[in-house]
């Protein structure tokens, strides 16, 4: 598939037949395997595109895999199913991981991933719901996902539906004030079917979060805003599944997922330069080798 073939039109939801809940192996072992495939896919996509946000893609991979393969009630054959759970990737620049997970979950053909960032490709550098099935919200500017998720959670309550809303926030983007407007609103309204997951990799584009504009004590902040806060190792699949599966107690839930930027590739892990550095051929080979182990 090249840019020309997939260009100009939105990707149609693939008609593969219903990818039912029962067909999915939700075991942590199975999900770890998928996450490894997603990481390989991310490296390959960024290598081919010559661009991308590899560090954040790798830190959020386990979270996205746990959600899409273990938690979210979604149907890839009906991406607009009204009662679906909503997922919003507020840190939209980590769209490489999202595309890969959506494709693996069956929302579109994995072959299309080869078109990532190509001219006229539907797979833009930030998600576009108008072109990519499974994307709920076009994010990219930071601090936009949580307010949208608040609206989605209010919509579920108003319509008497029982869908849940999940949003992944980057930790750096918590420096945007709009998040705290929405955090206050969610706490005030007791949006218990809203779960915000913070990808707490402690790095932002230019430096560590704590050196740039301190976030800690982060759990205390969300608690003070009326949230039920849990902390978890964001790469521990069983622990992640446990956090997302549990229901709230009248408060919105915040899961602070402690992650490592560049997770899975030793020379990228926890290094600020891999925010959006593109690996060279040797680095790609080394990364893929590590991720094959």
């Amino acid at each position, binding site marked *: 598939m090249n840019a020309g073939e997939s260009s100009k039109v939105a990707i149609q939801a693939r008609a593969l037949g219903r990818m039912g809940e029962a067909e999915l192996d939700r075991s942590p072992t199975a999900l770890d395997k998928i996450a490894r495939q997603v990481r390989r896919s991310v490296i390959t996509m960024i290598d081919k595109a010559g661009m991308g946000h590899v560090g954040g893609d790798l830190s959020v991979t386990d979270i996205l895999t746990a959600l899409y393969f273990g938690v979210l009630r979604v149907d890839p054959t009906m991406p607009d199913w009204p009662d679906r759970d909503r997922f919003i990737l507020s840190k939209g620049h980590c769209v490489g991981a999202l595309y890969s997970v959506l494709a693996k979950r069956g929302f579109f053909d994995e072959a299309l991933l080869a078109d990532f960032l190509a001219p006229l490709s539907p797979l833009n550098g930030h998600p576009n719901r108008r072109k990519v099935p499974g994307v*709920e*919200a*076009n994010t990219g500017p930071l601090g*936009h996902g949580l*307010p949208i998720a*608040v*609206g989605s959670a209010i*919509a579920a309550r108003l319509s008497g539906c029982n869908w849940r809303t999940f949003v992944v926030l980057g930790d750096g983007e918590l420096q945007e004030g*709009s998040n705290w407007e929405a955090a206050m609103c969610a706490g005030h309204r007791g949006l218990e079917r809203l779960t915000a997951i913070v990808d707490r990799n402690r790095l932002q584009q230019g430096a560590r979060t704590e050196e740039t504009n301190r976030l800690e004590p982060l759990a205390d902040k969300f608690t003070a805003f009326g949230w039920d806060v849990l902390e978890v190792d964001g790469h521990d699949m069983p622990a992640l599944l446990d956090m997302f599966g549990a229901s709230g107690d009248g408060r919105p839930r915040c899961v602070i997922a402690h992650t490592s930027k560049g997770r899975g590739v030793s020379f990228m892990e926890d290094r600020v330069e891999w925010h959006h550095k593109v690996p060279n051929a040797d680095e790609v080979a080394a990364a893929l080798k590590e991720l094959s182990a």
Partner: protein
Amino acid sequence: MTTAVASAVQPAPVFDCRQAFAETLMELAAKDPRIVAVCNDSVGSSNLGAFAKAHPDRLINVGIAEQCMVGTAAGLANGGFIPFVCAASPFLTGRALEQIKADVAYNDYPVVLCGMSPGMAYGELGPTHHSIEDFAWTRAIADLTVLVPADPAQTRAAVRWAAAARRPIFMRVGRFKVPAVTEDGPFDPDRIAELAAGSDVTIVAAGTMVSRALEAHSLLAGEGIAARVLNVSTLKPLDAETLVQAARQTGRIVTAEEASVHGGLGGAVAELLSQTHPVPMRILGVPEFAPTGDTAFLLDHFGLNAKSIAAAARELVA
């Protein structure tokens, strides 16, 4: 609704469009449970008191938090609702412009952004509370329809149309009292209405300036100048056909708007005509931060009245 109202010799009764807006929203909400109002502590200033009583669950007041307000509206639209965001225009457009662009327009969500008390409606409160930039800002956003109803009847029609349009919309809802210039009828988003005929010059007006353009038409008629008056109630997308025809047939254009002279109605008309049928133009609007004064004073101060509109037309005809 396009019929010209006879030029007023006696002062005509004037109306605050927010009342018509709120009544229409109530009427629609009673029939359609998908309609919700989202606001920023602006229940009173948006005339939403009755809505709050009738539909307490469907009035979502997020407090003084415009970014959250617009994002929340996008999320509500994702969940199947038709949100009317009601907030003072300067803060809705200025504070939440990126949310309007990304969360509403780029997402293509059917959110109706209602800029209450636009232009210089907040008079003495000063430029922080004036919304003269909203035309330029919203016009520049792709896929966002921009509506400027001229009076209560057109406000009612525009609200009804917007609720069913299923697209991102920004709409000015005027607070400064204006006379009726249109009649009840369906809103036609595609057409600029001709409210008065004329072949010497065309006055292209929007919102509060429409009644003043009609007054200018009367002043000019007394001097033997026939000024056509066009009511631009959809600023974007612009009805190019009517405007090019006016340029071709009258050869001169005056635009009048309660907005910045940069990038608003005048800019839109100039962009169009300079590339299709260039004619001499005068762009009347607000060129700078306003001094202290009530709205009526400020409109006069910036020459946004019948006399100054007529003077600009006269200058072009001479």
